[in-house]
């Protein structure tokens, strides 16, 4: 008993006192579920306006949410041990499909990112957003922590292969996000600060060669445009100028729901997908932004809380990585729309219209719930 208590500091007594309820048996983390429901509901109201009061768009997004919630619930039932066992297989399949994209992929807007099977299209890179942290966490879980140098190198190799395959699609944004999700696992696993600072120094040092030899012209253009949108008012700068105008003109109070002129008069491009936050900012003002950020922060805190409370190191690493990745989505999207970061195709999590990201994100939350409701004392 003493052993048990030592293994589970701060926990135990409270949970033990409670009788397992239905939600507990369904592996549902109630605070997380409530926050996500709030977020998606808020998102749908914004989407209704951003899509030009198109109820069909809202219903379609609602269906994606339904599918996402289903996958989340199913994902919550899977034990962490099983996730860890599945990880290498999922990773293998993921790499195989990414290779398939390179050879037989379907293109859209000049990039080859899709795979078509029997009329169904899907984006293998999207799945890798979950699989990469999963496989690295599973790989590290069985080893001494903090990981040693050769283990770190091996983990990085697991990350570099898919990231590289996605870069050549080309989809730099997704590739960086996937790399980040893997690196977050390493970070949460406690790799030495010397690695972290070393990586930062390396990143800064490689900026020059990457700019000159690594980036394509349109990618450079996006970065340049971010610093000076006026240089190309009608071209690449248009999006940023219009989204900043939308956000700024919202002020503190906003123009009111369904009153955004920037979006409704078509000045704001992609207003219901990547740039939806500009519509929210225009209609609800800074108050609306604070409300949205409030919900996001609570979800993030709950994520970190679940990580702190996780029973296994696999769960801890996954929870930390999933939470941080979720945050990166928020940061990159809000930053790019406000002209802080270059425009990369990152949707605002659970608010932007689109099916794939909703399903992936909710699957991630399903995993988080699995971690949160992991049976005490059970570990990999």
């Amino acid at each position, binding site marked *: 008993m003493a052993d048990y208590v*030592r*293994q589970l*500091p701060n926990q135990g007594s409270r949970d033990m006192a409670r009788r397992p309820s239905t939600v507990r048996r369904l592996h549902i983390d109630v605070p997380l579920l409530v926050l996500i429901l709030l977020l998606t509901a808020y998102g749908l109201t914004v989407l209704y306006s951003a899509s030009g009061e198109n109820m069909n768009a809202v219903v379609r997004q609602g269906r994606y949410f339904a599918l996402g919630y289903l996958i989340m619930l199913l994902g919550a039932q899977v034990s962490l041990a099983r996730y860890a066992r599945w990880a290498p297989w999922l990773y293998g399949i993921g790499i195989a499909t990414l290779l398939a994209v390179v050879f037989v992929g379907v293109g859209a807007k000049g990039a080859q990112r899709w795979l078509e099977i029997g009329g169904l299209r899907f984006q293998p890179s999207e799945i890798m957003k979950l699989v990469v942290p999963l496989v690295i966490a599973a790989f590290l879980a*069985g*080893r*001494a*922590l*903090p990981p040693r140098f050769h283990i770190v190198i091996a983990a990085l190799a697991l990350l570099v292969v898919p990231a590289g395959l996605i870069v050549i699609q080309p989809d730099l944004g997704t590739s960086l996000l996937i790399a980040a999700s893997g690196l*977050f696992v390493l*970070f*949460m696993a*406690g790799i030495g600060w010397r690695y972290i600072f070393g990586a930062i120094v390396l990143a800064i040092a490689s900026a020059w060669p990457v700019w000159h030899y690594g980036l394509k012209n349109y990618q450079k253009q996006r970065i340049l445009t971010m610093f000076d949108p006026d240089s190309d008012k*009608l071209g690449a700068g248009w999006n940023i100028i*219009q989204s*900043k*105008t*939308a*956000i*700024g*003109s*919202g*002020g*503190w109070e906003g123009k009111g729901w369904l009153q955004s*002129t*920037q979006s409704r*008069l*078509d*000045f704001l491009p992609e207003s219901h997908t990547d740039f939806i936050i500009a519509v929210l*900012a*225009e209609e609800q*003002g*800074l108050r609306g*932004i*604070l409300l949205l*950020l409030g919900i996001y*922060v609570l979800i*993030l*805190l709950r994520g*970190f809380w679940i*990580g*702190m409370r996780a029973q296994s*190191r696999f769960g*801890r690493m996954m929870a*930390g990585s999933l*939470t*941080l990745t979720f*945050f990166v989505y928020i*940061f990159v999207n*809000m*930053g790019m729309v*406000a*002209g*802080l970061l270059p425009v990369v195709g990152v949707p605002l999590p659970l608010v932007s219209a689109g099916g794939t990201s909703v399903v992936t994100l909710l699957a991630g939350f399903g995993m988080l719930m699995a971690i949160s409701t992991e049976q005490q004392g059970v*570990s990999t």
Partner: protein
Amino acid sequence: MQVQFEIKDPQREARIYALRTAVAILFVVLCLVLVLGRYYALQVTEFETYQTQSEANRVQLQALPPRRGLIYDRNGVLLADNQPSYTLSVVRESVADLEATLAALRALVPVSENDLENFQKKLPRSRASEPVPLRFRLTQEERARLAVNRFRLPGVVVEAQLLRHYPHGELFSHAIGYVGRINEREAQILDETDYRGTNHVGKVGVEKYYENSLHGDVGYQNVESNAHGRVLRVLERFAPVPGKNLTLTLDYRIQRAAIDALGERRGAVVAIDPLSGGVLALVSTPGYDTNLFVNGISSSDYAALRDSLDVPLFNRAIQGTYPPGSTIKPFMAMAGLQTGLVTPLSTVPDPGWYSLPGDTHKYRDWVLRIRGTGHAPRVDMKMAIAESCDVYFYDLARRLTIDRMAEYLNPFGFGELTGIDTTSERGGVLPSTQWKRQAMGQPWYPGETISAGIGQGYMLASPLQLAVATSVVATRGKRWRPHLVMAVDAQPVAPTQSAPVQAPADYWDAVIDGMREVVHGARGTAKALANGIAYEMAGKTGTAQVIGIAQGAVYNESEVDERHRHHGLFIAFAPIESPTIAVGIIVENGGGSSAASPIARSVIDTWLAQDTVARSL
């Protein structure tokens, strides 16, 4: 092995994890502060900048051009109206590549070099947000083609606008003129605000003279438009004030009668209401289709008009000045009476020619070559006018002298602009010693006075001036400024009176008597007109030499090149008891006055016939 590690130091692991979580939260908080700071800066600090920008995006001020005033004849017949027409315009601001857009448009609809040139000229003068017209009068098919391709042509707009239309084309070309596209020179003169949104301006004639009344006042509207420049709704509107409608003194039927009577010949007819100066007909042939000018005449059409030997663009009625010939005689007679040099009954011997004392040069009378003698042994004023005796007026002119001639003819309106309310009028020449010194730097020769007495030589008058002078006789001295506009927006325009010609009634009777004899006398030079006439007409024939005829040579019409034939002139008014119409007519190279006088009969008949109709109603 793995299990050993795990169990070995879970507390250290938990500590590391907690620290990492703390670092992660710190990172998250820092990033969120950055993002929130950015949103704060945009939404609070720079709120006004972006609010303004958003409004500027959304709201645009559009000029609403006023509808141009309509033009009617005195009976309400429409002479100029506005018809809806579709114009293809380009908004520079919304076009990424102007050259490419123009090329694409030219592939869809025909755009002439002329259209393109006008477009390029107007482009730098217009605001970037303003549509600049490229092609006018799109056909339905062209509109459909543009509509189908609209999605790939941002910044291209098809607008309905009202375009000037002249239902009667050539018939009123010289009477009312036309509007045309505003050119660079005009753009600098015209008020920029008033003409924002207006593409046309009066170029010639009444259309130009009354531009201020016809144009109206520009209106404005604030519109909400989307990113593609499409107007979604009107937020605020200040309606334009339409231009004023003009009612002209012209009478469609008289105008028609004059044109028909002139036929294919070159010439001019001016008919005036002597009681007010209102112009009833103002015709110059050949005319031209004014509708051609509304949207910029094509260079080939213009070249055809410009290079025609018949100079159709020349307004013979007011710009054309001709030697008045014998039509000057009634006014000369009046001068003679007023100076006391002749009386209605005084006579002059007429051998058929006249010589200055001490000079062998014979000034021949026109009857000399026909009869071999003069009109009669002695000729009085009535006969002199009726038979157009040259000798009578040679003698009168010599005694009058050229300067007194100028002094007494000027009150009839010779040698000065009549002040008619239209453009490009010319005042002709009323010669005097002073005029010749100034104009030619030469002294006046006595012989020149003799030919001036019968309206030859330096003297020039327009058909309008002849009509005005005739109406002064008709009203026995009253002179009104001739005018084309009777009412502006149904408000009558008061006619203006000029200084009258004051003379005793018997002087007028004598002159008018002579003029009656021209038409109704047995030996009147226009006695053919009296055939079947239902009223009394006073007239005077005239012939103007186009080329000089050598002393002793004989003018033979059939041998002379058509363009060297004499001009035929005729002035008249009717009915004599209470005149309601006075006319001045010229038929270029008509051979003689007999080409002009039947036109007067036709015009006056038409006028008096409808006058009776009007009175009987």
